[in-house]
């Protein structure tokens, strides 16, 4: 592991960029097997007070570490820019190539937010995709950077960021309408559930039940209602249901219906349940003729329970491990290189569910 650092108070973007170039040159000169990673730029705009938490989350990205991370920590009243740049590499040796990664922290003030693009633009690697993550809102900075970035990471589950699920989904739709690609961490929390539900109906004998579903019941961590709504939005968009707005029910639950394409309706129920991790806790799909399939989070995977008419109930485990919130963010960074065409239709269906 090799590491080189540079820092300067009251600096400029040009100085930061020059320092990065020099650090890369030095590292490569010291060991020609060290070459810079060239995957993507990650720009993070975060409140200075929450710097530690953000840094912790970035450190837990693991293998999905971007090649250049630019962390902007924002402080009230700060007038000038202070910056630290670090270039670190590992893996070289015995004729193998080692990968250098660059990270920059720029301390700035709120007054910089309106034109933060002019600070970031010189510092990013211009030929790489640029991803923006702004976990503490800073809408002004987001607006300023929209013309510069290719992908924005948002979390529509985040109650701090959005004033309720409706506002969160509307903002996601607005961003999706702009030139940037939206990666929504709430959507990524539904990935294992979407995969398992899709897998459950891969069996042709069960697939017919898709058309005769009568009720969907979702359990979720209270902080992840948007994940739950997006999951049902996904089902609705894939199967062709027209969901209506949900109504509040006792205990924080939500109830509603969706119209089926061929007539009839389907009952939708959402219940918050205690769960340590964010995201979905369980899903039950119920059809006619006594069919129901429940998937619930458990140790070592999802616990599945199936009932069918005339057959004794079955119970089994679908193996898998939880990615945790670090894994979700890492997956978000990875998704920046991919494109998921099913998010937008799911988002639109989910918006129909929210008042």
């Amino acid at each position, binding site marked *: 592991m090799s590491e080189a650092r540079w820092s300067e108070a009251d600096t400029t973007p040009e100085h930061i960029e020059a320092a990065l170039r020099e650090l890369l040159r030095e590292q490569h000169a010291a060991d020609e097997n060290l070459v810079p990673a060239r995957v993507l730029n990650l720009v993070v705009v975060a409140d200075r007070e929450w710097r530690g938490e953000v840094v912790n989350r970035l450190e837990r990205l693991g293998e999905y570490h971007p090649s250049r991370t630019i962390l902007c920590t924002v402080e009230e009243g700060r007038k000038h820019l202070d910056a630290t740049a670090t270039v670190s590499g590992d893996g070289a040796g015995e004729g193998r190539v080692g990968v250098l990664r660059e990270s920059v922290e720029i301390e700035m003030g709120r007054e910089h937010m309106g034109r933060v693009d002019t600070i970031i633009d010189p510092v990013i690697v211009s030929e790489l995709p640029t991803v923006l993550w702004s976990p503490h809102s800073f809408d002004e900075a987001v607006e300023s950077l929209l013309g510069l970035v290719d992908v924005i990471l948002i979390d529509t589950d985040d109650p701090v960021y959005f004033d309720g699920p409706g506002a969160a989904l509307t903002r996601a739709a607005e961003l999706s309408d702009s030139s940037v690609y939206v990666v929504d961490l709430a959507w990524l929390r539904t990935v294992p559930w979407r995969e398992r539900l899709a897998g459950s109906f891969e069996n042709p004998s069960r697939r017919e039940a898709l058309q005769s579903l009568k009720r969907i019941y979702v359990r979720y961590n209270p902080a992840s209602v948007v994940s739950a709504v997006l999951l049902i939005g996904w089902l609705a968009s894939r199967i062709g249901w027209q969901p209506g707005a949900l109504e509040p029910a006792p205990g924080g639950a939500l109830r509603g219906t969706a119209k089926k394409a061929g007539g009839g309706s389907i009952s939708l129920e959402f219940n918050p349940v205690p769960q340590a991790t964010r995201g979905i806790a369980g899903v039950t799909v119920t059809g006619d003729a006594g069919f129901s399939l429940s998937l619930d989070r458990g140790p070592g*995977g999802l616990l599945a329970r199936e009932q069918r008419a005339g057959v004794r109930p079955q119970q089994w*485990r679908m193996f*898998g*491990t939880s990615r945790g919130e670090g894994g979700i963010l890492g997956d978000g960074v990875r998704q920046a290189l991919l494109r998921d065409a099913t998010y937008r239709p799911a988002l639109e269906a989910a918006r129909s569910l929210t008042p």
Partner: protein
Amino acid sequence: MESDYQLSENPLVEGLERLPVRSTVLVIFGAMGDLASRKLLPAIYNLAHEGALPERIELIGISRGESTDEKFREHVRESVDRFSRRRPNADVLNGLLETVHYIRGAFDDADLYARLREAVEGLDEKFGTPLNRVFYLSTAPEFFPVIVENLGEAGLNTAEEADVRVVIEKPIGYDLASARLQNEAVRNHFDESQVFRIDHYLGKETVQNLMALRFANALFEPVWNRNFIDYVQITASEDIGVGTRAGYYEGSGALRDLVQNHMLQLLALLTMEPPTSFEANRLRDEKVKVLEAIVPPRLDEVALMAVRAQYGPGVVSGGETVGYLEEPGVAEGSRTETYAALKLYVSNWRWAGVPFYLRTGKRLSRKLTEIAVTLRPVPHLAFQSSGSLGVQPNQIILTVQPDEGVSVSLGAKIPGTKMQIRPVNMEFHYGTSFMSESPEAYERLIMDAMRGDATLFTRNDEIEALWGIIDPILSAWGADTTSPIPQYPSGSAGPNEADALLEGCAWRRL
């Protein structure tokens, strides 16, 4: 919002990175063997860890050894603990072990298959739905025909409302005749669409990237022909010796071990025409076409087109090493080659006249797998480049290991007042451009077999085309029992005799 879908299609799979697989019972013949322990069982665990396995999976291990369900589960746990690429999660591993069963029996014993059928049908009944069957033959190749015949005789080659597939490990045959016999034995009981012949090399990301490089970039295809390419060298060198594998290697040799499968697969992917789609048979059609265009040497041409050698004593990493003939388990006076070099031509419009040089060997100076494509020199130079290395032909180097990447050599001006040229490299390393770790080849291939996607598996006619290329060489070398086998020092770049194959070029430095 999409509303119309056929019941025959699953509308939920659209957009998923990981496509679902129907519930499956995976039966491993040779479940206590080295391949199963080191590769298959850890791969299955890793798939479970990632949530990639079908919603219901049952694993049946079959072997001749005395064991029980409990003992086999312990064996699986030890294999996973020791060889998994990630630290096992206790809940996942314990859950997976609950799906593991063991059946003891000799592979030629009909009673084994009766018990297997009973076990598999019992699982169908227990789950209330027929499970897909995947029979994985991780045994010595002589058992392949025996097992497929017994599976057929026991009626295990078909199932109502479920797919049945058989996965066969390499080597498929020992030569063309035995490969044909083996294909015939399999075809007697299984349709070709049910057969998945593994060459794990095709499961490597690096090899699949070769197709991406060729067919996803407009840059290379215009020059990918005889008009621009002078010659190609494909190298698969190893720095290690035969180690503890002398028993296997004595019956195989470098030509069968690496050239007949991995290296000719690389050659096929490098030279085939663009497939119309990446559907399994379209891709394999193109590979077969180009393999059939490689003219095998006549027996009297073999000496001019192929060189074999054995490693002698030498110095590797500063330490002295013994030669092949002194390795434990190697027969006295063995004529098994540890090095093979070939010159081949692809007789079609695209490649006619372009020599393809292949070399592989053990105990060479370094471990390296690469394809080096050398372009023809520029037709005219408008300036002198005296006082420098001068203008060299461009080379496109595709490195498979140890560092996967692509390098293009270009002529560039040396700074100064004169027009002096030297070659420089434009390099691209996959490791610097993607974040995620590549999955093990076996994880990808096991999932593809369970899903029924044969794109990365070898078809019967492909196997026979591969053997057809090297069969005359095997025959000529087998018939020659007196000529001395050239020796090369361990730690060197190979035998000098291999230089004679080259026309107007030299082997690339390892």
